[in-house]
């Protein structure tokens, strides 16, 4: 995992999920190259976070961060990232 991928896994404030998923909804509606959203988890993430990190979601269906079932002692540090049309389907 690159330093920047790790860097975005900082603790998030309560509005993070709403703001980012709204952004991606707008991006898909406005004809950008975004086709969905993915969750970035780390090697040290709990099983619940790692389980949701494999899937490409529509913004309306994406699990909300912080992940409710997260059992990591430091709390959920997952992050969203857009999935682009040019990335592997």
């Amino acid at each position: 995992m690159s330093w920047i991928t790790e860097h975005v896994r900082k603790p998030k404030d309560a509005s993070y999920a709403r703001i980012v998923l709204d952004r991606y909804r707008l991006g898909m509606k406005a004809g950008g190259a975004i086709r969905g959203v993915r969750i970035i988890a780390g090697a040290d993430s709990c099983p619940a976070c790692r389980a949701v990190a494999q899937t490409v979601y529509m913004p309306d269906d994406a699990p909300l961060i912080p992940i409710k079932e997260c059992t990591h002692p430091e709390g959920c540090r997952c992050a969203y990232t857009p999935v682009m049309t040019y990335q592997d389907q």
Partner: protein
Amino acid sequence: MIEVLRKIPLYILNRRFGWPKMLPMNITLSPSPRCNSRCLTCNIWMKREDEFTLEEWDKVFQSLGRTPFWFTVSGGEPFMNKFIVELCQSLYTHCRPGIINIPTNSLLAHRIPHQVEAICQNCPESQVIINLSLDGVGEKHDRIRGIPGNFAKFEQNFRSLRELDCPNLTIGIHSVISRFNVDDMPELYAYAFSVKPDSYITEIAEQRVELDTVDVGITPPLDRYAWAIDQLIERVERRSFQGISRVTEAFRIEYYKLVKRIMAEQTQVIPCYAGWASAQIYANGDVWACCIRADNIRNLRDVNYDFKRVWFSSEADRIRKSIRNKECHCPLANASYTNMLMHPATVARVGTKVALAAWQGRREVIELEPAAARPER
């Protein structure tokens, strides 16, 4: 410029020992993330923020005073901003920078030249650099930027800007080298040099928190990037430059070589001065050391728009410590040029190269002159 050179040792001391306390000399402003491009390499246009008003920016510029030498007014697309002319006027009034640098996608080609002319006239003692984005020739540009007809707008904008009679205007072309165009770069260089911009610069597409491009895979493979950039270096080295262009082109070549090393070694090859000599102020007033990490130091609204209270805070020190410890590395052009200026070995290499080029140029002129025409010595 001499004032800037005089401050370099102070920034080096500041980074090493925390003293003397210095405001940044290079500041990027992002008044709005809104953009009418749909680039494959950037997702900033999807963002919406509680943006600063012109009055709020004015208070920030007042608090900055005359330390910053270089301002970049970034975006989003800066010319979508209805108060871009007034914003530049305000920063000129309070900060009187040597350089105001504004990138543009050229999509508002019908109004950009008028606004640029107004900015040049309102800021007569600043060099105004307008960098036109160009990522491909013809439809290749349109495909990467996500807007049909964008290349035609680029050409229209470039021509219109060229017709302006503004002595303090520099018109540059800026290309982002990504996985989408890396193989087409020779064609792009040929085109870009053929239209004779005042400057031509490239930057590698990279992961940035600001642009929401983390983990989306836009960076070209290192071997392809090296192939593309080596051709640019060769092209630049073949040309002969005069005056200050000799210095800027020598720094550009150093930058391109530095990018290759950073990408290969995955570390800060030279010390990064983001957080000391360079900074960014985002649309909502958040202050960042740089746009790659986009760590919010503090929001200017929380400190009555006093930049010093943010810059000299313990939060800023915490981020500086992380940068000093090399917890990050990147080839960001804006920060890298500042970093090179703060790196004595790089400055010495550039100085030697420029001096040699000047000496060789003088010798060639003398050898070409007929003997009778030479002045007696």
